[in-house]
């Protein structure tokens, strides 16, 4: 994938905690309006990875609130699991829709890569609404591409 590719592109921005289905359906609506290349971009959250570098960080389980050490290894493990889970969901949805989207993974801090994938102003970015709170959003909004924020709570 290169920035010189001028074909219209719809990019679904996914995170470890974003629900896939509403984002996918929103992207499908865009595709119905105008045919385009579909890309699923998994943006890895840097923040809790940084937190994992601190020796005293604890993770509180969403189920029951039990706490445990939150180490780098733990962060990497759940990060990989999240990528795999989302990738699998995308594959299933794509198979149902008879599509073959590219699946890209990028750190939030890797602005160059994200910019390369999101591309130019003709493209459409479908993203969860909470991403507007993320630092990357400032950069994305400057790309002048069309950003479609989908109301989707972080999975909790």
């Amino acid at each position: 994938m290169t920035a010189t590719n001028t074909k219209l592109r719809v990019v679904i921005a996914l995170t470890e905690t974003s629900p896939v289905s509403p984002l996918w359906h929103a992207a499908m609506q865009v595709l119905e309006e105008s045919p385009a290349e579909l890309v699923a971009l998994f943006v890895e959250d840097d923040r809790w990875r940084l937190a994992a570098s601190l020796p005293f960080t604890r993770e509180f389980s969403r189920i029951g609130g039990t706490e445990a050490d939150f180490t780098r290894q733990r962060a990497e493990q759940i990060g990989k699991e999240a990528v795999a889970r989302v990738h699998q969901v995308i594959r299933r949805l794509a198979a149902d829709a008879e599509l073959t989207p590219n699946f890209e993974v990028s750190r939030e801090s890797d602005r160059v890569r994200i910019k390369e994938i999101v591309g130019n102003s003709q493209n459409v970015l479908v993203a969860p609404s909470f991403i507007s709170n993320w630092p990357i959003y400032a950069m994305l909004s400057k790309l002048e591409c069309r950003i479609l924020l989908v109301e989707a709570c972080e999975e909790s």
Partner: protein
Amino acid sequence: MVADTAQAFSVQPADLRKTCSVPLDFEHDEPPGTAEACLGQQRAIDAIQFGIEMQRDGYNIFVLGPMGSDRHVLVRNLVAEHAKAKGPPWDWCYVNNFTNPERPRSLRFPSGQGSQFREDMGSLIEEMGLAIPAAFEGDDYRTQLRAIEEDTQRKVEEQWQTLNERAASEGIGVLQTPTGYVLAPVIDDKVVGDKEFAKLPKARRKEIKAAIEGLSEELQARIEMMPRLRKEHRERVKALDQEVTAHAVSVQIADLENKYQALPRVSAYLDDVQENLIENAQDFQQSEGPSLPFLSGDSSRLFSQYEVNLVVDTAGSDTAPIVYEPNPSYPNIIGRVEHRAEMGALVTDFRMVRSGALLQANGGYLILDMRRVLSRPFIWEALKQALFAKQVRIESPGESYGFVSTTTLKPEPIPLDAKIVLIGERWLYYLLCRYDIEFSSLFKVAADLDDDLERSSENVQQYAQLITRQAHDNDILPLSASAIQRVIEERARRAEDSERLSTHMSSLDELLAQADYWARQRESDQVDLDDVRKAIGERRKRLGRIQSKIVDAIKRDTLLIDTSGDCVGQVNGISVLDLGEFRFGHPVRITATTRIGTGDVVDIEREVELGGAIHSKGMMILSAALSSRYAPDVPLSLRGSVVFEQSYGGVEGDSASVAELCALLSSLARVPIRQNIAVTGSVNQLGRVQAVGGVNEKIEGFFDVCRERGLDGSHGVVIPQDNVKHLMLREDVVDAVRQGKFSVFAVKHVDEAVTILTGMEAGARDDNGKFPQGSVNFGVEEQLISYAKLRKGFAEQGAKSDGD
């Protein structure tokens, strides 16, 4: 003189066959009434009526009688009269038991209302299927639901906002990972990693750690709060759903409750339906999104739990039910719980409960063939159990006997109030009385069908009407008067008694049908005398293969039977072969030998275990007759043996005992016996000749053999005098007697038989107790005294030899 004496015992032709000469004083071509349908069965009719009317426990009925005696028709006719007066019974339904689905509830309704209730519930289901989802689709519901969701969301956000604000004030961020939450230091909206953290002043690092420590508890408290908020949310949504459902169903349920308010159990069930609908309101919302079909609670399945399984429907009937179950298997009588396969498993519910004949007959009458009941497994015990408990419990036999441990339905038992009428043969009844101790307490009424009725003028008239009715009912050509008379004669023959008429209806129907066939063969519009004769003759011909083989074997001297000349110690007895549908007689040679001995008469048949118990008894009786009548003052020093020659099967009955005794007397007295005469009859210890069975067949059997060899007027049969009333001989036999070609002699005492068979005087004791010289009995006694003297001589000689 002796020949004259023999003639004195001759039975007159008129007594050989009692013809029907009673004029038939009714229009036999008119369709008859039904009054004579149960002719001769008044005792059984009274018993059945008593059993039907007796409304106490255990007064069920057992109808005893042979197959073909129109037992079913009799029972049905009598029961039908009472069924009209009784009126239709309850309808019965099974419905879901919402608190315990494994025990479906039974509901009863007045006749016809069961199906009405099923329709009403069907309409309710249909309405609910539309009304409930519509209520959930309505704006009111959506608005209220949204308000609840927003309120819950607000509460959740408040919880997190408070935490986030407090954390932010202390420079801490609450981060979400895929599996939980993390508290991390934040500076200028950026999370601080380990390198940046290490660069912070020690005091600041300490503050951050303390802040995180402090926030951890609060974070945990918030996490724990979330399930409570979710539960509260669900409860509020559920309450809203129930409110909406209650609003949708209450009017319809109230209408039904009003309609069935006279039936408290039905009203209670409707309350349960309403409660269940409201309780499970959320299930009735149309689900969105894909789901696995076999796991989804689609609305049709949800609503099916309110269906009604009408197991007894008496709608349209105005009488009590009369049920005859030709195949009384366990499911057909008790009922069953059916199953259907779903994803490899067998499942069932209250809708698959099926009633059996007991429930179908509830409030009325159940008629069963006892032989079939006993030949089907488990049903007899189950039937008794139902009668004792006075309720029908539908369960599989496996479950009933504890063979099956899997959970299945246990439908609520239904009270049983049915009169059971069992129909069976007499031996079944007596066996059950003897070996089943519960039988008598459950079937207290025995209706014993008579095999025959008196051949009085009145009964003959009624019987003629019965014949006409049977012909009319069975689409048989009208019978002429002479044909009816001939049929009546045949019915006397069937009864084996010229003074009685058989009540065995199926054999009557067969005769009429066959006579009808022959009448139609000659394109007649009426059954005449010759058609009846032809039917009887053709039937005999069809079934007479074995008889003709035996006659042929005798004719060809394969079976040795003399029908002329005379012989010492040899007599023609007569056997009857019973082939079920047909029986016939044929002569058998009986021989006797005698010599000096110790008083034994050996029955060779018994010695080789070919003789039955009654035959052995007859032999012992004739031994006793011999010893008591002759030479009473000396020991019986005889060894005699008697045998049925060329008999290779079993011999049973005592009807040959006169013949056997005559053979022995002939042997002792050395007096030959005429071979042109056969003899039948049993004898008692005093020499009295007693009646036997099958006398007609026996005479005809010997007649047929003699006719084959040529009748010359010397042939005849000696029968007991007491059997004369049973004579209904074939017309050809009677004709032969009338023409002097054949004779039938009737005797009361064995001496009379001896006189006829030997042509000599038997001899009676004079005032001195002596038999007249030259008589047969004199010869017998002389021989026995001679044996006794010889035996005494041998004994003395033996004693002397021992002394020497």
